[in-house]
C-alpha cells in the first residue's frame, strides 16, 4: 500500500496513530500486515454494504404497503453458486496472503540477533547474549533483524508488541521463536496478552528501539559483567557436565563442541538437527535424546536448573566452536558479515586483548 501513495499513506497512518485509532507501524513487517488488514477491512465494508443495501432496498421496495402480495421463489442455483464461490475466493486470497505473512513472522532469518525472553508471573526477563538482563523492557537496535527465543517459567504468557505486529506465546516447557526488524526509533508497548493470573495487567513493559550507537552505549552500561555464554560455562562445570562431556577419548558422553546446528543420529535411529529446543530437552529429558553409540546414563536436570540456567547453558553450547573467550565482550554484540550464519559477541572496546570479528 505504501507503494501506491506514500504521502497519503503516511498521512493516514500518522493521523490515525495520533488519534490513537491505529497503532504505529514500527517494524518492517507492519506495513505488510496492515496491507492485508486493510484489504480485509475493504472486503468487509463492501460485503457489509452489500448486505445492508440488499436489506434496505428490499425493505423499501417490497414492504407490505408497496408490495402486498408476495411472489414465491424457490431459489436460484446460479445465485447460490455466486455467493458461495465469490466469498470462498476472497477468503482463500486472505488465507494465502495471511499464511505467507505467518510463515514470514515465525521463520527467523539466519542472520537475526538472538535475545532470550523468559516470562514468569508477572514479569518479562529479557536476556541479551552479552549478559545484559532487563525486566519488562527490551532494548534493540534499529534496522536489525532480532529473533526472540521465548519460554515461560510457569504458566502460559504471551509476548506482544502491537507496534511491530508480532506476538507469540511463552509456553512452559518449550521454546517458541519469533522475529522482527524495527525500523522506527522510539518506545513502544510490550504486553502480556495471555491471561496468567492476578497481575496479568501489570505484566507490561516497553520496547525501546535505538540507533546502533545508542544501542552499543546501552549494552555497555547495562552489563552485569558476564555474558550468557560465560554463565553457561560456569554452570557447565558446576553441574559436573564436564565429567562426561569432555574431549578425552574415553569420554562417556559425546563431545559437545560444534554440536549446535549439526545433524545428530540418536540411539533410536532418528536423525535430528540440533537446535535450542533440542539442547534444552536433552538437558531436562536426556533419556530420549541419547546420541547413537553412547549409553543412556545422563541424569536429568529437571528441577535443578531454572529456565535462565538452561538458557545460559544453551547459549554456551551454541558458541563452543568459536573462540569466544577472546571474542567475549560485555559491551557490544555485532553482526558477523552476511552469510556467516550466526552472530557472535564482538570485540572488546578496550584496547587490551586481541580484536577478532
Amino acid at each position: 500500500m505504501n507503494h501506491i501513495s506514500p504521502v497519503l499513506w503516511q498521512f493516514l497512518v500518522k493521523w490515525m496513530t495520533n488519534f490513537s485509532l491505529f497503532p504505529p507501524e514500527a517494524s518492517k513487517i507492519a506495513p505488510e500486515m496492515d496491507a492485508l488488514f486493510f484489504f480485509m477491512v475493504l472486503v468487509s465494508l463492501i460485503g457489509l454494504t452489500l448486505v445492508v443495501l440488499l436489506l434496505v432496498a428490499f425493505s423499501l421496495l417490497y414492504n407490505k404497503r408497496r408490495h402486498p402480495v408476495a411472489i414465491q421463489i424457490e431459489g436460484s442455483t446460479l445465485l447460490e453458486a455466486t455467493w458461495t464461490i465469490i466469498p470462498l475466493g476472497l477468503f482463500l486470497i486472505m488465507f494465502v496472503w495471511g499464511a505467507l505473512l505467518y510463515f514470514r513472522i515465525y521463520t527467523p532469518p539466519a542472520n537475526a540477533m538472538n535475545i532470550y525472553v523468559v516470562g514468569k508471573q508477572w514479569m518479562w526477563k529479557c536476556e541479551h547474549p552479552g549478559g545484559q538482563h532487563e525486566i519488562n523492557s527490551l532494548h534493540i537496535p534499529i534496522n536489525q533483524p532480532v529473533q526472540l527465543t521465548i519460554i515461560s517459567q510457569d504458566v502460559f504468557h504471551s509476548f506482544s508488541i502491537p507496534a511491530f505486529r508480532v506476538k507469540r506465546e511463552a509456553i512452559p516447557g518449550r521454546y517458541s521463536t519469533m522475529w522482527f526488524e524495527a525500523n522506527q526509533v522510539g518506545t513502544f508497548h510490550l504486553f502480556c496478552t495471555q491471561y496468567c493470573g492476578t497481575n496479568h495487567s501489570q505484566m507490561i513493559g516497553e520496547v525501546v528501539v535505538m540507533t546502533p550507537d545508542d544501542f552499543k552505549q546501552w549494552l555497555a552500561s547495562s552489563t552485569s559483567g558476564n555474558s550468557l555464554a560465560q554463565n553457561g560455562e560456569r554452570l557447565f562445570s558446576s553441574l559436573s557436565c564436564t565429567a562426561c562431556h569432555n574431549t578425552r577419548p574415553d569420554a562417556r558422553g559425546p563431545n559437545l563442541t560444534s554440536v549446535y546446528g549439526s545433524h545428530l543420529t540418536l540411539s533410536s535411529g532418528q536423525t535430528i538437527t540440533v537446535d535450542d529446543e533440542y539442547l534444552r530437552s536433552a538437558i531436562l529429558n536426556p533419556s530420549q535424546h541419547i546420541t547413537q553409540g553412547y549409553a543412556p546414563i545422563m541424569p536429568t536436570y529437571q528441577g535443578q536448573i531454572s529456565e535462565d540456567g538452561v538458557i545460559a547453558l544453551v547459549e554456551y553450547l551454541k558458541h563452543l566452536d568459536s573462540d569466544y573467550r577472546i571474542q567475549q565482550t560485555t559491551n557490544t554484540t555485532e553482526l558477523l558479515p552476511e552469510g556467516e550464519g550466526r552472530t557472535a559477541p564482538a570485540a572488546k572496546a578496550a584496547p587490551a586483548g586481541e580484536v577478532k570479528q
Partner: protein
Amino acid sequence: MSAATVSTIVNLPDQSTARIPKMNFLTKENGLLSWLLTGDHKRIATLYMISITFFFFIGGALAGLIRLELLTPQTDLLAADTYNKVFTMHGVIMVFLFLVPSVPATIGNFVIPMMVGAKDLALPKINLLSWYLYMAAGIGMIYTMAAGGVDTGWTFTTPLSTHYLNTHVISTGLCIFIAGFSSIFTGLNFIVTIHKMRCPGMTWFRLPLFVWSNYAASILMVLGTPVLAITLVLIVLERTVGIGVFDPAKGGDPLLFQHLFWFYSHPAVYIMILPGMGVISEVVSTFSRKRVFGYTAVAFSSVAIAVFGFFVWAHHMFIMGISNYAALVFSLLTMLVAVPSAIKIFNWAFTLYKGSITFETPMLYAFGFMGLFTIGGLTGVFLGATGTDIHLTETYFIVAHFHFVMVGGMLMAFLSGIHFWWPKWTGRMYPEKVSQLAAVVTFIGFNFTFFPQFILGVLGMPRRYAAYPPEFQVLNVFSTAGASILGVGYLLPILYLTWSLKYGEIAGDNPWQATGLEWQTQSPPLTENFIEIPIMDHEAYDYEWLEAQQRKEVASV
C-alpha cells in the same frame, strides 16, 4: 377475525369476545409438583426460560461490573483478583448457562415437537432430567461465586488452572461438567425426536429450517460435549491428585489441554449460533410472507457448519506452539467453515426479494442479527487468516468479534424467537411499540458498546486486563456508555413481557399468519399438542396452502 392492516400482518381475534382457551398446557394441572415432575416439553421449556433469564441477568450484572471497572485505566473499582473472578464468571455463566441452552432448551424444547407433528419429545423424562442437571449446575455456580469464585478465565488454561491458582476451580469444573450433560441430553432428545417422531408426510425436506438448525446443533452437542466432560475430569484429577498429564515437569503437555478444550469449545460456538440461525429463518420467512430462498441450501449449510466445525479447533491456537503447517491446515478449514454462514445471510436477504415485508419486533431483531452477524462473521475471517491473527489474537478484537456474533447475533436471535413465539406460548401478544423501541435501543447500545472494542483490539489492548495504558481510555469510556444503553435495552423486555402476561392482547391461534404446524393449534397449546397426529401434505413455508386454509375456515366459532 379482524383484518390485518396495511403495515402489519398481525391478525388478532376480536378482543371483545376472545378468550384464552380454558384447557391448555399451563392450566392442565396445578401445583408445584405438577411443574417439577412434568414430562410436558412445553412446561420444561417454560422452566428453562425462567431459569435461563435469571442466569442471564447474573452474567449481565457481572458484565456491568467489568465495564464499570474499565472506565478508568487503573484498577480502582475492583482489585485485580476480583476483576479476574468477575470476567471468568461472566464468561462461564454466559457461555454454559445462557448461550448454549438458550434457544435449544427454551424455544427448541417448546416448538420442535409441534413442528415435526409429535405430541412430545422422544424422551420426556430425560428432558426433565436435563433441566434438573442445568439447575444443579447453575446453583452450584452460584455457590461457587458466593464461596469466592474462580479466576481462571472461562478457558481454564493449564497450567494456570491446575497448578497456580487456589480458587474454586474444581467446583466450577464440576458444575460445567453437569451442565454439559444437560446439553448432551437435550441434543440427544432432539436428534431422536427428529429422526423417529415426524408425523406422516413429514419428510426431511418438509421440515421447517428451525428444525434443521437445531438438528445440526444437536449433532455438535452430542459429539462435542463429552470431550469437554473428560477434559474437565482431567483438570480435576490434575488438581487433586497431581497426575501430571498437563505438567511439563512430569512429562505431560499443557498444549494437550488446549487441543482437548478447543475440540469442544469451537463446535460449542456453532452450538450457540445454529439454533439462532434457525429462528431467523422462521422469522424472515413469516414477515416477508415467502418461503425461505434456497431452502435446500440453507438446510445443507447448517449441516455443513456442524461438520466443518469439528475440524477447525486449532485456529484458537495459531500462536500457541502448533507447527506452521498445522496452522496452515486449520486456517484453510476455517475459511471453508465461513462460507456456509455467508450463504445463509444471502439467502435470508433474498427471501425479502418480492416478498411482502412488515417490521414487527421479531423482524427488527432479525434485521439486527443479519447486520451484526455479518460484521461478526467477517471479523472472524480476519482472525482465521494466520498472518493477521498474530496481531489481533488475544486482544479486544477477539472480544469484539465474539460479542458481535454471540450478542449481536445469538442474543438478538433469541429475543427475536421469544417475541415470535410469545403469543403461541402465553396466548397473549406483547406490546408492539414498546418492544420495537427496545429492539432499536438494544441495537444502538450494542454498537456503541462493542464497535470501539475492534479499534482497541487493533491498537493492541490485550483482553482480560483490569488496567490499561491511558491512551485507550476514550474508547473504553465509549464502550461503557454503550453498555449502559444496552442494559436498558435488555431490561425493557423483562418488564413488558411480564406485563403482557396479564394485560397483553389475546393472540389467537395464528397472529402472525405463519405456516408451520405449531401455528395450526391453539395458543397456548394443549398438553398433548395435537388431539390427533397431523398428516403433513404440503411443503414447509407453503403460504399458498395457508391461504387456501384460511379461505376454508369458518369465521366464527
